[in-house]
């Protein structure tokens, strides 16, 4: 199908007066495109290569001119060394715990609310929906100071509650995305279930959630990545080192040992790799996320 179209447009080009001399021009264009792509790829990828290369080098190769790209010999010691300077295993565990709370909120609480907005009629529902949409426009910093005071009052400072409880109660962006998806699910299945006397909660759980797996995967990934990357929240609400997340712990590590580039790059690699794995396992959900936000139109 696509091939046919290409042939079609080629034919229309040949009718055109300037068609002469096009093969050479097209070849040059192809070559130029390819060259620019390679150049761009080098610029965007080199920082990663540099990071991994540094993490596998001994100090005398790290501080060398001209720069050495391939470590000789490969040194794995920078990775275990990180754990001597920073309790990375605790940071991993803390970050994972907080991220899972975010995923829980996105998948369960947000889809519950999204189902309400998409399918259940109630007076004032659309006004409430507009309120929720405008919530997305309120910048976090406007709430930051009172939130800190509130959490201090609740004695939640230096606990995971400020970083988990609000997220578990739902995030408007994910509710919005899931609602958009639910609206595309045909109603017939649910109607049949209603006639059979199923409760809405049951329908949500047994019919809608399984059908919405792709959208749920998207919000799950988005919320996981947000929590994994978040720096401001942990910076403001956590104090003790044992409770630090990866972001906060890594920042403290660099602050204290700014010249230990081998271990620092090893630590950065360890923080980036899980995100890359998530990305490669679920590439299509990233694209889906963009489609779900309705940006395309």
């Amino acid at each position: 199908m696509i091939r046919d179209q290409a042939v079609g447009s080629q034919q229309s080009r040949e009718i055109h007066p300037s068609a002469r001399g096009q093969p050479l021009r097209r070849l040059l264009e192809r070559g130029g495109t390819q060259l620019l792509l390679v150049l761009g790829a080098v610029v965007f990828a080199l920082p990663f290569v540099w990071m991994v290369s540094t993490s596998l080098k001994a100090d005398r190769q790290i501080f060398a001119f001209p720069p050495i790209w391939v470590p000789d010999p490969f040194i794995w010691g920078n990775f275990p060394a990180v754990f001597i300077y920073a309790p990375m295993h605790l940071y991993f565990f803390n970050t994972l715990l907080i991220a899972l709370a975010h995923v829980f909120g996105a998948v369960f609480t947000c889809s519950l609310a999204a189902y309400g907005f998409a399918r259940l009629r109630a007076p004032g529902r659309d006004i409430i929906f507009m309120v929720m949409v405008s919530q997305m426009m309120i910048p976090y910093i406007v709430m930051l100071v009172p939130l800190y005071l509130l959490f201090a009052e609740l004695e939640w400072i230096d606990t995971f509650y400020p970083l988990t409880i609000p997220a578990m109660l739902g995030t408007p962006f994910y509710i919005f995305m899931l609602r958009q998806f639910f609206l595309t699910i045909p109603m017939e299945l649910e109607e049949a279930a209603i006639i059979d006397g199923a409760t809405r909660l049951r329908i949500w759980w047994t019919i809608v959630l399984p059908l919405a797996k792709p959208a749920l995967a998207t919000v799950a990934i988005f919320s996981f990545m947000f929590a994994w990357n978040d720096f401001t929240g942990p910076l403001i609400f956590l104090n003790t080192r044992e409770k630090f997340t990866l972001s906060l712990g890594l920042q403290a590590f660099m602050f204290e040992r700014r010249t230990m580039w081998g271990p620092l790059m090893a630590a950065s690699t360890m923080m980036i790799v899980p995100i890359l794995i998530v990305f490669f396992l679920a590439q299509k959900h990233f694209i889906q996320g963009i489609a779900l936000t309705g940006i395309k139109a």
Partner: protein
Amino acid sequence: MAAAQPKPRFTNAAREALTCYLFLLPWGLGFLAFVIGPVVASFVLGFMDYEIVTPARWVGLANYIELFTDDARFGMSMGNTLYYVLVFVPFHVIIATLLALLLNQKARGIAVYRTLFYVPSIVPIVAGAILWVWILQPEWGLINSTLRMVGIEGPLWLASLTWSKPALILMALWGSGAAMIIVLAGLQGVPQHLYEAAEIDGANRWQRFQHVTIPMLSPTLFFILVLSVIASFQVFTTAYVMTGGGPAESTLFYMLYLYRRAFVLLDMGYAASMAWILFVAVLALTLIQFKLASRWVYYEAEQS
């Protein structure tokens, strides 16, 4: 029978409404406790002097007056932020567009390139910041080493008054891939028949780009422009991690100053008023952009 029927229908609707409210309840609770409450409190706090250890005191507009008349750091941090926004945003939009145009060509291995360009934008910001401190390191870093190989002595980057802000912008531009994907989606949404029609009319490549691609892409570009202005006004983490606001406060951005006021000096009322100023400034800029949009953004629906 006829009299009995309306009644169950009414209870059904009531039950559906009740169910709906129950489904929205968790979000509603979070909204009241962690959004609306704090927003109102923040507005009130802006008119108070509250430094946690002493009881809050109503000071009226004193915070705002002090900000605009008696706080050099306020103006300076806003100036630093404007510099960042004005340099970052145009480059960001242009780079995202150029990369998307490049990826929209037919070439071998497009999927691999798309991934390569996109991946830096999902790198955790602190990990990326640490990596870039190393890349920008004046003596052994990748950039200056490379420059030295061609005989150029590079600047001190993060330690230089002139180059600290460009260095942070450079790092942020590395993450242009997310915007690139959005532009790419926009490009692929341009109907092919428009290009064909323009070609039949004798439009050359540049003319097709100018009169078909750009107008059709303008809503997407506008979207990215608005979002990147909002986001770059709130630049914080890279400066906090990479420079701590230095050298000589040349990277003391607005958010960083706000953070210091609130969580280092515990000047909560003052910080709240700063947050409102930023919010109002960004909101006003966004509204202006929407106002100006009618001049250059093309919406198909309006024309038909």
